[in-house]
């Protein structure tokens, strides 16, 4: 049968417990505390890093809005453009836009663009048709969904049809890949 502890014994046990706790705190507390302090310091560094990164990201929110607006304006997402088929698709789209407006397509010549000017190709387009069709083509080229810039435009009267115009354009197809920053090749 267990004997009940007296108050004196209970007090002794309490004091002993406190002393043991103090001993443990003195001899093992410091390294543990140091370990956690190091972790806390690293954590604070990470917090500061995260804050600065967040500020950078927030600054890009405005840029993203401008990009979105321009993409809507041009009906184009540069990231989806494929360099291999860019010129072919652009040429087809120009001819389609011209035909849809009632413009009779003439000779079309394609040549390689100047890489220094970040051009993928140059398209020489000729056609004839009524004035509204010519103007509509000029307008629609901007919303074609391809990065095209009319380099030169020449309008002349069509001798065969007094109500029509002959149009000759030099169209530049820009190369988005050339705008991307090149990864630096590692030193051999």
């Amino acid at each position: 049968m267990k004997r009940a502890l007296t108050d004196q014994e209970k007090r002794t046990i309490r004091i002993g417990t406190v002393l043991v706790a103090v001993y443990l705190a003195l001899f093992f507390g410091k390294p543990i505390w140091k370990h956690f302090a190091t972790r806390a310091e690293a954590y604070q560094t990470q917090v500061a890093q995260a804050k600065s990164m967040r500020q950078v990201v927030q600054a890009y929110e405005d840029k993203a809005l401008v990009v979105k607006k321009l993409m809507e304006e041009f009906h184009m997402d540069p990231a989806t453009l494929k360099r291999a088929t860019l010129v072919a698709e652009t040429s087809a789209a120009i001819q389609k836009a011209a035909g849809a407006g009632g413009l009779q397509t003439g000779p079309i010549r394609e040549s390689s663009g100047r890489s220094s000017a970040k051009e993928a190709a140059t398209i020489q387009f000729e056609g004839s048709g009524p004035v509204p069709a010519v103007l509509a083509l000029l307008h629609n080229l901007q919303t074609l969904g391809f990065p095209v810039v009319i380099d030169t435009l020449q309008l002349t009267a069509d001798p065969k049809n007094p109500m029509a115009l002959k149009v000759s354009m030099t169209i530049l197809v820009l190369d988005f890949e050339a705008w991307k920053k090149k990864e630096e090749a590692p030193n051999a």
Partner: protein
Amino acid sequence: MTAPGLPQNADIFIEISHDTWAALCGHESVAFPLERSENGRLTDLCRERLTQRLRGFLSRQGKRGRLTAWCALEARGVSLRRLSLPAASSKEEFHRILHLQIESEFPVSPQELAWGWRAVGASGPAANGGAPRRDVMVAAVKREMLEDYERIFSACGISPFFTLAALARAAFYAAPSASRGAILHIGRTGAELVSFEQSGPVAIRLLPWGGENLTRALQEELGLNREEAEKLKRGENTGAKEWSGALEPAVALLVPWLKPLGAGATISLTGKPARDPSLAPLLRQLLGEGFSCANLEVAAGNEGTPALAGLKKSAANPSAFPLLLLDAKEDTRVVAPDGLAAWKWAAAAAVLALIILCFPYLESVLLAPRLEKKLASLNAEKGRLETIDEELAFLQNLKQEQPPYLDALYLLAGAAQGTRLEPLSMSRHGDVSLRATMANGQQVTDFRSKLIDSGWFANVVVEEQTPTQDRHVSVRMTAQLKPLAARKELIVESSAKKTTAEKEPPTKSGTATNSPAAVKPKS
């Protein structure tokens, strides 16, 4: 669960009334008169004298060292309540409930009271069929009332344990368990009436009736002076004539208080006035059939008073005659849980302080994984930021590179009214060259002025102006489109408005647009 009782061993028994301090030690009893000030507290002189006398009494009895005293208090200033409490699962819970109940029932907080309790009857279900309840009787007295006595006891090396004299008398009387009745203790100016039921004492009342009433009755009825009346009352004037008839008007005053006890009740009389042998028969006679009255005062014998005798009897057999302990010390029964709660609060505060101290470190341990995930997602977004930069630069360049061919055509068409333009060429860099046939030289000048006034063209040069055979003028011109920032705002008129423009002054309809419907150069 039992109520705390008085300690097993008692060295001295004491009864304290308003005007007398009676002590019983062994077989010797002694009584000291008390002097009180207006507030009911003992005077300093009385306290000193009492201390000395008590020391002397104990010395005579050969009592040394730390002694234990059972003290019976008169009912004056004591509140007695019968409470019905819900049955508790543990002792601590029961005390907590009891403490709360006392707090609500008594006008003074339990900490300011010396109070005790004892069970009354057995626990049983509630009347409405709810949880079982338990009836207890609680007696309480203001702690400050006991301070004077405690100082005297402390000076004499005595540990006092307080109870009620009325209950001690009841222990002395030891009424049968099935009996019902009361003990009427008659003092000089007042009386204590303790009523009993089968379950034990249930109520204590103080009556404004005492020995003084009897003395006055004897004086008035028999024409005696006060001293003679007192002697007669105490039974010292045995040669006097029959006086019980003279007491009748005074004793009759007791009847309304005792009648409610009901027929079958036994009324026991104690106190000095009760020593009058004619009092008990007279009272029984006045109460009528069914009541019985007995004199307990005489039965106390050498033990001083029935209360002292009851204390001694209870000390000899505490389980048979349990008394109610008025705990005058700090209320440990309740303080214990409070103390425990205080420790809990202190521990909680310490833990909270530790958490606050360790919070920066805990934060680094607990939130580091989350922060790392967040950093990883931000790093992933960093790659996307470069793409945004590239797309923005590309699209902005595309927008800037778009030459305003439609706007330029609109302006040229507007300026060349009645003119035949052929051919017209423009370049992305803003070079414009055209050949036109105009009516005369003035029209050439007007055309050039209009181009310059439009704010869009610079360096408008007529390179060649040649008269033709049909009296017209053939013109070859070049111009340069101004940069975007230097151009004027373009005002475009819709075709519908243009038809009414002859009647109405021109109005601004909007800014530059490339709408083909709005731009119609004349061919």
